[in-house]
């Protein structure tokens, strides 16, 4: 009884690492650029495929590939930003939403065209081994993804709160006009932030590849969950993302374990939570 409980908790913790990584990028873009990037999930998918092909073609371990995956998406998002995003930043917020929606659908279906819709998996030695800690057994691969996620998130916080660049980013997030007045190049900070956010998504994608696999349609589920998380955290609230990831991953894991046939219901939990959080907030503040 207790063992199952602890095992579920361990699974939740691991899952929350991936969620936090995937959502932090989205939260960063919302907080700084004030756009909700619907293509975030597809950026994650791109990262997963970069890692997949590097593994298949060059035999590079997917965990190592998170560096090139992040780099590719960082560069690609720069192009996307310059060509499109920056042009809708001042337009009504829904334009940005529809634009990124369009980008996401395009990427997803291009991936279907190029790679086919079948899911892909990688095989590494550590995917088959597990470490056992008392009653709890955790696969080495998930454990690595958790460690990487924690390290990256810690790194992101360090950059944001301990460096000059981070300070600039936070200044722009708080007050665009003010930051502009004190001489910050707002456009470049937007570009940089969008790049970091997108790279985080791609890295999360490489992590998902190790644990589950890659498919052109994988992004949508993640972006929806990332929405749920950042909405629960409060749009743009980065620290909130961490606990919201934990709460939602835990809720999901427990439903999966304890509700009969809970696999499908676990999905619904997310959307119910997002829905009720939004509605509850709107009625409370009104």
């Amino acid at each position, binding site marked *: 009884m207790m063992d199952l409980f602890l095992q579920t908790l361990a699974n939740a913790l691991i899952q929350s690492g991936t969620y936090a990584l995937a959502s932090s990028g989205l939260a960063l873009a919302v907080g700084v650029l004030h756009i909700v990037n619907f293509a975030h999930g597809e950026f994650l998918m791109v990262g997963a495929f970069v890692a997949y092909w590097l593994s298949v073609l060059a035999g590079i371990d997917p965990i190592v590939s998170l560096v090139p995956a992040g780099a590719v998406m960082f560069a690609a998002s720069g192009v996307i930003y310059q060509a499109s995003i920056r042009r809708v930043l001042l337009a009504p917020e829904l334009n940005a939403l*529809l634009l990124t929606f*369009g980008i*996401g659908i395009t990427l997803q279906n291009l991936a279907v065209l190029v790679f086919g819709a079948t899911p892909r998996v990688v095989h590494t030695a550590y995917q088959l081994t597990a470490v056992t800690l008392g009653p709890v057994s955790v696969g080495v691969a998930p454990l690595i993804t958790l460690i990487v996620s924690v390290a990256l998130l810690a790194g992101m916080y360090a950059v944001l709160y301990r460096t000059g660049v981070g300070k600039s980013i936070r200044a722009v997030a708080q007050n665009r006009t003010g930051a502009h007045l004190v001489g910050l190049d707002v456009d470049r900070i937007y570009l940089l932030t969008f790049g970091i956010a997108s790279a985080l998504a791609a890295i999360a994608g490489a992590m998902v590849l190790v644990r589950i696999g890659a498919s052109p349609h994988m992004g949508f589920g993640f972006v929806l969950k990332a*929405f749920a998380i950042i909405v629960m955290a409060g749009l743009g609230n980065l620290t909130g993302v961490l606990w919201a990831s934990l709460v939602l991953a835990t809720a999901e894991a427990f439903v999966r374990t304890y509700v009969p046939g809970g696999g499908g219901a676990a999905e*619904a939990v997310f959307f119910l939570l997002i*829905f009720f959080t939004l509605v509850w907030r709107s009625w409370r503040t009104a």
Partner: protein
Amino acid sequence: MRWAGPAALVVALLVPLVPAGGYQQYVVQVATFVLINAGVALAWDIQARTGQLSLAPAAFFGLGAYAYTIAALRGVPLPVAFLLGPLVAGAVSLGLGVVTLRLQGLYFAIATLAFAEVVKVIFKELPLDLTGGAVGLTAPPLLGGHQTGLYYLGLCVLLLVVAASLAVRHSRLHYAFTAIRQGELTARVLGVRVVRTKLLAFVLSASLTGLVGAYATSRLFFVIPEDTFGIGLSVTALATAIFGGVYTTAGPVLGAIILRSLEEGLRMVLREGYLAVYGVILMLVILYLPGGLVSLWNRRARDAAGGD
């Protein structure tokens, strides 16, 4: 553009009579899909006119489709089952509208998206003998599955949506919808009953979407949660309306004619991934033609008339 509507109607009436040789069936089939897409896109647009960007058309389409299918399979007379589509979708949207009506912009969009996903999961998880679970159900066809008859029925359904759209456009509602979209608080101070009006737009749009859903099912003969409630349907609806021109009656219809034909053409070449077209078009229109195709026409008309 006075002649455009009647001309389009005449063409639509003639479609099944076009001598297309061996392609006759195919032409009617594509035309039927155009009717379905146009109906969903236009119904979406009616609500968008109040500034509420819904990402839940798939939910109401699916509710209409399932309501028809489940009722028909249980021996309810087909015409009654057909009417249950819009009724069920409308009733559910009333509930959803009441709880979400305080949500603005982005939050509303995300809440409707979450709602649509919840509904999809629910239909997958409901008892198998009710909804057929993940594999769905086979739907009894209307009109004995007669293709041309069903095409004309689809035309009637679309005409109903068009009539609703025109009724909104040429009544007091037009002013209320537009005012709410462009400044909700100002609209309230000018006496517009915002809550009631938004709810009306929501329920009207959802009922019409449910109607199209019931129709589409009676034509396609099956429902599957992943497709019938699929996000693809919502994407198509809003991309179609935005491409043709939002807040107009002609725009979504025009958008559906072009995009769905294009999609069918691509489908012959590509088995998957043709939805990329919708993505690209959405991007291009948002960036370069925010008023959609009809704005090209309106701009010309305006230049010619020197203002207005």
